[in-house]
Every structure is written in C-alpha cells, then in structure tokens.
C-alpha cells in the first residue's frame, strides 16, 4: 500500500534523510525508532508532503500507486485527513481550544462526507466510544481543556479516525503522557489498527512503546535507516552496532543488576547535521568500526560494513 524508495531530504546544512526505503502493507504496523536528529519526524512529515519549506525532497513515496513526492498540494490535501491521518505528541496544540470536542470531530465528517450536523455528531459520539472514552455523548459538549492529557490524546485519535483512514501516522503520541496512561494509549492504537485493518506507523524514541505496538521496526540514525525487520527479532537479536548499543543502553528493570557496575553506553553525542560523517553515519561512535566506515556508505540490511564481510 505504501512504498517509499530513495527518499532523501536535503537542507542547507546537509542531508537530514538519506535514501530511505520502506514498505507497508494494509493493516501492518511499522515502528520508526530514532533519537533526536535521526530524521524520524522528518520522515513522517515527508510521507505526507509536509516537510518544511527549506527542505528539498527527492525520491519516491507511493501510496496505493499514487506518487506523493512532487504531487500538487490539492492532491495531497485530499489524501491528508481522509486516507492518511496523523496524531502528534502534544494533544492540546492539535485541538482548537475554542471549539467543543463534538464540533471538532464533526467538522471533517460534514466537510468530507457531507453528513448533516446531527448525523456527524452521532458519528463523533461513536468514534469517542471507539477510542475508549466513557460517556461519549456527554463528552461532545466538553472543551479540550476540560479533559486530562490522556483523554485529549484519545480525542485526537478519534479525530484522526473520523474519515476512516487507511494509514495512521503517530509521531511520539505518548511522550507527553504518564507511563500508565501512555501504555493505555499504545494498546488502543494497536487494537484500532487490528480492528479496522488500518496500517499504522508509530514514530518514537522509545523502544518499549514500539515493542508494545508494532510488527516491524526500522531504526533510524543520522538520517539513515540502519536496520529494519520484525520488531521482536530486531529487539531480541539486533545486528547493527547502533541498534545493539541503543538496546543495551536502555535501563531495564532487573533485581539482579549490580548497581556498582556502570550501565553500558554508546560513547559520544549525536552529531549535528553538518557534522555527520559522509560514510556510515555511526562511524566515530561505533565500537567495531572498520577503516573505510567513515568514508564509504554501507548498504544492505543492516547497513553495516561488518555485516557485508
């Protein structure tokens, strides 16, 4: 359904995304994991033709056979919100504070589906029930600020579902939420995807969140997809040195941990866009680096010169 190939996004300072390739089938759940500066948010935005103006996007994004890179704004706009929907990190800024929840959700239904106000509000109540908000009819009359963070995120999800999208892109949907609430929202996203046979892309820095929801996982570092595969396999047996480091550096709950021992780390810091090495982006921080890693870009999956030899 979604086929991304050779997708690159260039800024003045350098390539923020370098030839990304991804495929996504109907109803499939893909996780995109990366740290700040990895290009994960940019990747999500580029799929919708929403990369910032200063960015130069090349490559191909095909959605149901339709090319989205370079597509006219009108074509993209009719896709967005209808067939592809998006959920962001901060639910409060995604909801107009001056409008009631019911009207917020009813608006796209009236606009795109031509429903009457009453029918649209009925549908909105059904959507709120679907995302697990109790007493949905009463909720319709509430304003966003009258709800908790978790409830607001449920409302933005209901809003995204309004036009029955085929693909939902969620960018750090739980980062602003408490641990327990976040777990519920993640479970909701997974269940919705199953029930509606809706494809889901979950973008997150949190491997735990991705493991909870997705079937497949792509790891992004410095604008490169360094490794992708079934989520369980990648997390259980990571092959790229960056993925290995990332998984090892994650604090894990374990009664047997000797707290006198330091935690495993990845040395150094994530380099700025202009300072990324030309070859493997991870070179310079990699514990198993080869001489040509810095200058030659590795290909394959995982994208690592060690793997090729």
């Amino acid at each position, binding site marked *: 359904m979604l086929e991304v190939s050779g997708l690159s996004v260039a800024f003045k300072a350098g390539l923020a995304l370098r030839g990304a390739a991804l495929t996504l089938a109907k109803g499939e759940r893909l996780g995109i994991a990366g*740290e*700040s500066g990895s290009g994960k948010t940019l990747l999500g935005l580029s799929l919708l033709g929403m990369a910032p103006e200063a960015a130069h996007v090349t490559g191909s994004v095909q959605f149901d056979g339709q090319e989205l890179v370079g597509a006219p704004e009108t074509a993209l706009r009719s896709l967005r919100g209808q067939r592809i929907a998006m959920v962001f990190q901060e639910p409060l800024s995604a909801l107009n504070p001056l409008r009631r929840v019911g009207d917020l959700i009813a608006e796209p239904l009236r606009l795109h589906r031509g429903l009457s106000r009453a029918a649209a509000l009925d549908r909105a109540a059904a959507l709120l029930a679907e995302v697990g908000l109790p007493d949905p009819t009463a909720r319709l009359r509430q304003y966003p600020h009258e709800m908790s963070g978790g409830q607001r995120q449920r409302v933005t999800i209901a809003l995204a579902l309004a036009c029955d999208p085929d693909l939902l892109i969620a960018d750090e949907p739980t980062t602003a939420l*408490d*641990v*327990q609430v*976040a*777990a519920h929202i993640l479970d909701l996203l997974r269940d919705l995807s199953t029930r509606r046979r809706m494809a889901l892309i979950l973008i997150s*820095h*949190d*491997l*735990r969140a991705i493991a909870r929801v997705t079937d497949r996982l792509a790891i992004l570092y410095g604008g490169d997809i360094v490794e992708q595969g079934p989520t369980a396999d990648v997390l259980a047996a990571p092959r790229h040195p960056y993925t290995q*480091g*990332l998984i090892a*550096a*994650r*604090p*894990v*709950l*374990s*009664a047997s*941990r000797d*707290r*006198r021992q*330091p*935690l*495993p*780390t*990845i*040395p150094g*810091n*994530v380099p*700025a866009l202009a300072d990324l090495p030309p070859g493997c982006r991870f070179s310079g921080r990699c514990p198993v680096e080869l001489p040509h890693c810095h200058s030659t870009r590795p290909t394959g999956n995982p994208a690592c010169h060690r793997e090729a030899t």
Partner: protein
Amino acid sequence: MLLSIENVHRRYALPRTHLFRAPPVIPAVQGISLTLDRGEILGIVGESGSGKSTLARMVMGFERPDRGRVWLNGQDSATLPRAARRQTQMVFQDPYDSLDPRRSIGWSVAEPLLATSMTTTERHARAADRLARVGLSPADMARYPHEFSGGQRQRIAIARAIAPDPALLVADEPVAALDVSVQAQVLNLLMDLNRTMGLAMLFISHDLAVVASIADRIAVMQHGRIVETGPTAQIVAAPEHPYTQALFAAA
C-alpha cells in the same frame, strides 16, 4: 543522617474561581517522612502530579512546608543561613533552561563559588577540575551553552552543582529530556560522583527502570503520599503495593 524529612505537608491554592468563595486547594504533598544517609542514593518514583517535584523544592528550600520539617545535617532547613544552603545542590530536567545563554560555561560552573571566600584563581581552577570530572574539557570554559548538545549541557549543569562540594544532590528528572544513548552516560556519571565524592542523591523520576538502575533505596509516590519504600532489589523483586505493580506492568 544527612537529610531527614519529617511529616511534611504542602498545599497549593489555585486561582479563585468565584469572588466570594475560597480558592480551590490542591494538596501536593500530604505527610511525607523520609531519611537519607551520607553517600546514599534515594530514588523517588511517581507520575506527574504525585508531588515529587514539590518535595524536591522543599528539600532545596525553594518552598516552605505548610506543616512538618526538613532537617539538613541536623539543622532545620527553614532557619538555615544562605551559605549553608550550598550543601544541597540541584540538577534540573531541562538542560536548555538550566544554563544562562549569556554566560560562558566557565562562569556558570564557577557561579556557586562567587559568594564564598575563594579567589578568582581558585574558582577558575575548581571550575576546570569539575568540568574535567564530568567528562568535558577545561578548554570548554570560554564557550557558551548554545554550542553544546543536551547531554553535554546536563554534564555542565552537574559540574556546576558539584562545584561547591555539596553533600546532597537533588536531581529532578535529570535524564528525562535526554536521548536514550545519552541517558546511560549521565546515569553512569552520577553513580561515579556518588562513589568518588561520597555525594548523596535524591534522584527523582517518573521512570521506574531509570530509578532502579541507580538508587540504593526507592520510595514510590502517589497523590502526595509514599505508598511503598524499600531497598531497590526488594522493590524490583517483589513490589507489594498495587500502584507499584501497575508501574511495573507499564514499564
């Protein structure tokens, strides 16, 4: 005993909703008692609104408890002179907020020493030493915060906190804003300072796994109260309170 918190309460008044009614009140901390020994790391776990940050602010003396006492080194913190407050230093969550953008790194790290009897040369040497301890170069002293990444800034903030040789470090979500690969670096640094300087810590986080990886003891907070406390190994192996178990399930 380095720190002793005795049945502290703290409530906040919200803005008045009605001219003639008493403003609504949020009880942020409702009767908390804790102790912390020299060189010990006490982890506090809780979600937003659990009162953990209010507790930190009371230990720092930024706020007074409505009821109860905070004892530092056997002295009531409410009557502590300003110089003695340097015994307790703090590291904040947002490394982009905790360094003055218009002050050089060297100046910022040496700032806690300004109100002491140290000479300029001594302060400079101390700042250089502390920067080296957190893994930065003394040559960075002339640079400004915007030249550093989030993780580096947090190291600088830690260097500033340990500049006056405090006995207690209050760390409120010190790694929450950092990338995963940098979090472990900062946690290791804190553990290292705990070992080499005998620095005691009140380590506050919403993330049970993070707290469990560094703390000797853990206190779990919910709605302004401590619902469970004990040695880390014991809490991790057999959490007793339903809320702690729920945190485990989510982690």
